[in-house]
């Protein structure tokens, strides 16, 4: 073997791609994940359109002459019990569901991963304390905690965020702990210790980045669950209240008129299904793409 070809062999073998580009390479070949991603992009763009081009006045303006109109060219999703355009209301409402879900899951991710990595890296007493607390936290169902927090502290976006973020974090603690445990014994961690890096820096600059991929999968599939939870809480009256068009609240306001006007219930619900479904597809695709057993 001449020198040149062995060099290219080495450079091929050690061609370092970032985690993101590697994920992207594998996701591209998974039709489900691509579909999920495309739908999510469209939904996000729709939400942005709603933020920039639909005003609060437009979605709350009542029109008594146009009540319970079925879907038409003028009103794509029909109108509700006060003659408000349902299409505008649904698009306007996306921001609540999405921002809450993103906020709550991001909060759970940051808190969960922080404590989980510490537990996994240090082990011993730190591990015991963190994991026992996690066990206790994970034994409270989201809906119950949400009901208590909202009924005591009032129904604000922040309280909903807290309720869902807190109940979502135990999963991230467990996942990140398990991931960090698997990479803890690797040589590069030892090397980092040998050059005198502090334990904190090792955890967050060496161990955690290499243990990130299962966490990304959880993050994605957890988004769908969060959207369902937010909608459920709003539906039973412990979330965002009715004048604001959150998706769950819209379904809830439509239920009283389901007999003459089922479209008020159907359309907001469809958007919940579409969002959750896309996140689930993307999550499943990511899981397959990041599964180390499938690595070539």
């Amino acid at each position, binding site marked *: 073997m001449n020198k040149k070809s062995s060099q290219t062999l080495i450079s091929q073998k050690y061609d370092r791609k970032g985690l993101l580009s590697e994920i992207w390479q594998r996701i591209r070949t998974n039709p489900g994940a691509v579909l999920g991603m495309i739908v999510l992009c469209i939904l996000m763009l729709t939400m942005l359109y709603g933020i920039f081009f639909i005003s609060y006045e437009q979605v709350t303006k009542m029109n008594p002459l146009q009540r319970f109109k079925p879907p038409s060219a003028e009103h794509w999703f029909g109108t509700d019990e006060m003659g408000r355009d349902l299409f505008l209301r649904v698009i306007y409402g996306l921001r609540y569901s999405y921002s809450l879900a993103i906020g709550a899951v991001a909060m759970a991710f940051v808190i969960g991963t922080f404590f989980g990595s510490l537990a996994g890296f240090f082990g011993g007493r730190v591990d015991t304390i963190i994991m026992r607390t996690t*066990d*206790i936290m994970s*034994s*409270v*169902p989201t*809906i*119950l905690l949400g*009901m*208590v*927090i909202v*009924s*005591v*502290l009032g129904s604000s976006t922040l309280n909903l965020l807290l309720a869902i973020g807190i109940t979502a974090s135990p999963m991230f603690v467990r996942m990140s702990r398990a991931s960090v445990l698997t990479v803890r014994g690797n040589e590069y961690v030892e090397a980092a210790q040998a050059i005198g890096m502090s334990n904190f820096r090792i955890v967050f600059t060496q161990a955690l980045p290499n243990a990130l991929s299962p966490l990304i999968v959880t993050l994605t599939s957890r988004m*769908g669950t969060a959207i*369902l939870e937010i*909608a*459920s809480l709003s*539906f*039973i*009256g*412990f979330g965002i209240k009715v004048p604001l068009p959150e998706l*769950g609240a819209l*379904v*809830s306001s*439509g*239920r009283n008129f*389901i*007999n003459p006007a*089922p479209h008020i*219930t*159907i359309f907001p*619900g469809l958007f*919940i*299904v*579409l969002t*959750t*479904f896309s996140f*689930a*597809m993307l999550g*499943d695709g990511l899981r397959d793409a990041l599964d180390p057993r499938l690595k070539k």
Partner: protein
Amino acid sequence: MFIYSIKRILWLIPTIICVSFIIYALMDLAPGTVVDSMITSEMTKEDIAELRAQYDLDKPMVYRYGKYMLRLVQGDLGKSQVSGLSVWDLYTSRFPMTLRLALVSLCIGVAIALPLGIFAALHSGTIWDNLTTGIALIGISMPSFWTGLLLLFAFSYHIKIFPSGYNGTLASYVLPAVTSGFMMSASTTRQTRSAMLEVLRQDYLRTARAKGVSERMIIIKHALGNALIPIITQVGMMLAFSLAGSVVIETVFMWPGIGQLTIEAINRRDTPLACGGIILTLILFITMLLIVDLLYALVDPRIRAQFAPARRRKSA
């Protein structure tokens, strides 16, 4: 195994204490106290202080919580502020409704999920597999209240076959049970499929085939038998979640169960009832999860072996 079970059961006590303390503390934080509505303009400062002392409001919250838990153990959670009935009695009178609905839904869910999951696993990689998993994924993505409302519209308002709420007949079980059974079946189908796929790869199935065991026996006895362990866990968790999360389905179908009881209590600011209801549901939920965990260890010989005395493990 025995020691493990005892450890797990003992661990239940601090969990319940912590969790119920958090809930109690949150409820206690709520603005306003029990005595606020009893104070009249004629009362002197001393009277008010005495009244507050009667309800232990002059003592720290931990004291009130301790007293509360002591009474809970004896089945006395105080009286509802609205109806004057005992919280414990109210809860236990509504609980069978929730339990019955959950059990019927569970049967429906399992009856759909098991065959579908096995079917998908046996045809893995084909269009049938994709179709089944696709439907299951949609099922997971549908909010239960939305599914319930659509069914309500289709089979109660449009075609009038089933009642829209509870009226004591068996027919009123159909819609809520189908709704929550469908939700359960979605995730159980996925679990069944992946458990079966895992088992179908094993060598002992090849051995069984080599012995000439019929394909039907292989699937039902050899494969499903082993795949059942994670499925049982999933089903147990589903039951626990459907008891704790019964609020949503009960709101849709006006079902007089514990979820409705709790919501009504919260909406009427009936704190003893709301607090008691939530804490009892929580204890139920935690206990169910523990039972599922212990069952898992009990059913799976591999896990049981981990806790067997070392002497026996060596000889095995």
